[in-house]
């Protein structure tokens, strides 16, 4: 078993929470893991990415080699395209459709979506809308994780447990909202 995952988005959009949930689930399943994060300057509204590597054998490199990623999970559509050199031929691209516009030359959303659709295996969902319906506007990142979950080789229940573990400190209400977001995201892509 091997899942090499690129998580992408803009600083502050919560990709590190996605990474933390998958990481906790991996440890619970005794899966080897390395996960490289971006801290510091780029976290101020710049593009951020995390390389997450899961395997049943020890993982060597902290970074995923080009052309080897099985998944790109992105909370922002333009950012999902930035990491295409890492995506393998059979890899899946899962992205939020809602743009985060903080630069003056942000391209047209339609053209971005056309580029994403050129990738054979892709899932585009309105994660922000789904999060809102689930009653937690800030959980778009968790919705995206839910949508990506069928492509991660781990039982869904262990992702649910990891959500409980990560958000447990913040109270039951937050845990339930995030679980709802996770499940709603999953439904979108198994449909």
């Amino acid at each position, binding site marked *: 078993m091997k899942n090499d995952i690129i998580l992408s988005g*803009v*600083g502050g959009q919560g990709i590190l929470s996605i*990474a933390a949930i998958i*990481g*906790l689930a*991996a*440890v619970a399943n005794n899966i*080897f*893991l*390395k*996960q*490289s*994060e*971006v*801290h*510091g*300057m*780029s*976290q*101020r*509204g*710049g*593009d951020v990415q995390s390389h997450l590597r899961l395997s049943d054998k020890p*993982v*060597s*490199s*902290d*970074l*995923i*080699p*080009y*052309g080897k*990623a099985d998944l790109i999970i992105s909370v922002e559509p*333009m*950012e999902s*395209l*930035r990491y*295409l*050199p*890492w*995506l*393998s*031929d059979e*890899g899946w691209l899962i992205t939020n459709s809602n743009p985060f516009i*903080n*630069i003056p*030359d*942000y*391209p047209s959303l339609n*053209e*971005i979506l056309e*580029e994403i659709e050129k*990738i054979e295996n892709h899932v585009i969902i309105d994660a922000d809308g789904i999060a809102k319906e689930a009653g937690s506007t800030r959980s778009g990142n968790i919705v995206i994780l839910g949508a990506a979950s069928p492509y991660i080789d781990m039982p869904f229940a262990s992702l649910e447990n990891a959500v409980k573990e990560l958000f447990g400190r*913040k*109270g039951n209400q937050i845990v339930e909202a995030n679980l709802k977001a996770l499940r709603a995201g999953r439904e979108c892509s198994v449909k």
Partner: protein
Amino acid sequence: MKRVLLLGDEAIAQAALDAGLSGMYAYPGTPSTEIMEFIQSSKEGSEGNVHREWSSNEKTAMEAALGMSYAGKRAMVAMKHVGLNVAADGFINSAITGVNGGLIVVSADDPSMHSSQNEQDSRFYGKFAMVPCFEPSNQQEAYDMVFDAFEVSEKFKLPVLFRITTRMAHSRASINLRTTLPQKKLLLPADPLQFVLLPAIARKKYRLLLSSYESLRYENLISKYNFFKDGNKRDLGVIACGISYNYFLENAGESSNDFPVLKISAYPFPKELIKEITGRCKAILILEEGAPVLEEAIRGILDDGIKIYGRLDGTVPRDGELNPAIVAKALGLPVKYGHDVPTLVKTRPPSFCNGCGHADMFNSLNEAIKPYGTGHVFSDIGCYTLGALPPFKAINSCVDMGASVTMAIGASDAGLFPSVSVIGDSTFTHSGMTGLLDAVVKNSSVTIIISDNSTTGMTGGQKSQATGRLEQICEGMGVSRAHIRVITPLRKNNAENVHIMQEEFEYKGVSVVIASRECIQTAAKRRRSENSNE
């Protein structure tokens, strides 16, 4: 055995706690910040009453850690690579005084400059100071090494340099934890003159250091992290330092047994170790994350031995961090890229958060300085350095911590008027205060704008030593009370703030404008924690 998921930084912090740490000292700096943060939030830290407050700068942190060691207890000090320049005086001399309790100096290098002004390699400092230097290749090794580093430190009475790089610091892996050791008891050095570097004593101690450094080469606690593994190939052998070993393994995969490989993760080591591999192979490839430190040493000046590939001959790029593709190419292996990045993808540089006080300060400053033309504003290290980028384009320098104040003084000496410094509150107490004293003593015509967000913002909002003290510090340094102006950087105050700045530009002496408004990230975090405590 307990297993936990930790960042490299956190693994080092956890190891220090488990190895009986009594004092952690640091100034925030990417990619080292999480070491102190982990200790501050740990149960072991509070239960063991481990010292875990931030220091004003890396020099004060280094010296306080040396004081903890003097008293016989285990201490760690952590900083980013450029922080070691600030701490260098204490660091280099601590090798000559030696230590009492174990002392580890963690320096986190940032090759490719993700969040830094340069990519200097801290291993140079290890050799310079002649102290043992550890360079872990993975998170588990980093955890285990801390225990040995403390032992080496106490056995040889030397500080130990612990060199990590960004990908080690900020990558997470699961770690097997060891049984914990108790903290050491207070015990003063046996020799009361050990730490007194008067020339007569320093000469003796320096000779002792020279001989210690040679015996370190044969110390098992160090050499166990360096090993040679032979392979079938004779045309190319690989020397891989620190995390470059991972990129080698990643690429060589199943055929990693074919390459003779020498893994180096601790210094100094005996010359014979290098001959193990150079004696067997027609050529060697040297992989180092950072500068060609080992490569230069192996090539020497004559460079007439076997063929050496590395950063100096262009096989590996001379600058920047390594990655699997660079190492694949260096090994002569193919690299297969996925899809091209569509041309419509635009760069997304970091920017001020919406509602940031620095942005309002820069808007006022730009308006205030406009009549004088461009080129008057020196700045410093922090979030506000983003004022260099459009739409602000407000600053003309960013060099090192505190340099905005002193460069403004020098430019004013040369006749620049007005000469303005923009510095953050935490950077000001780190290294700006002494410059301000220079300005006061010679009555320089400078205006220092302290953009005070009451936190160390860029590194994620650590406590600032300056909070609540800036006016008193400036007044105490001798700035005239009438020329210490406090403003609130908000759009509605713009006209007034522009006016105040211009008044102070025109003053022919030292003036300080404190633009004070809490970082919106820290404020939001504070409100969230207040709400959850209700």
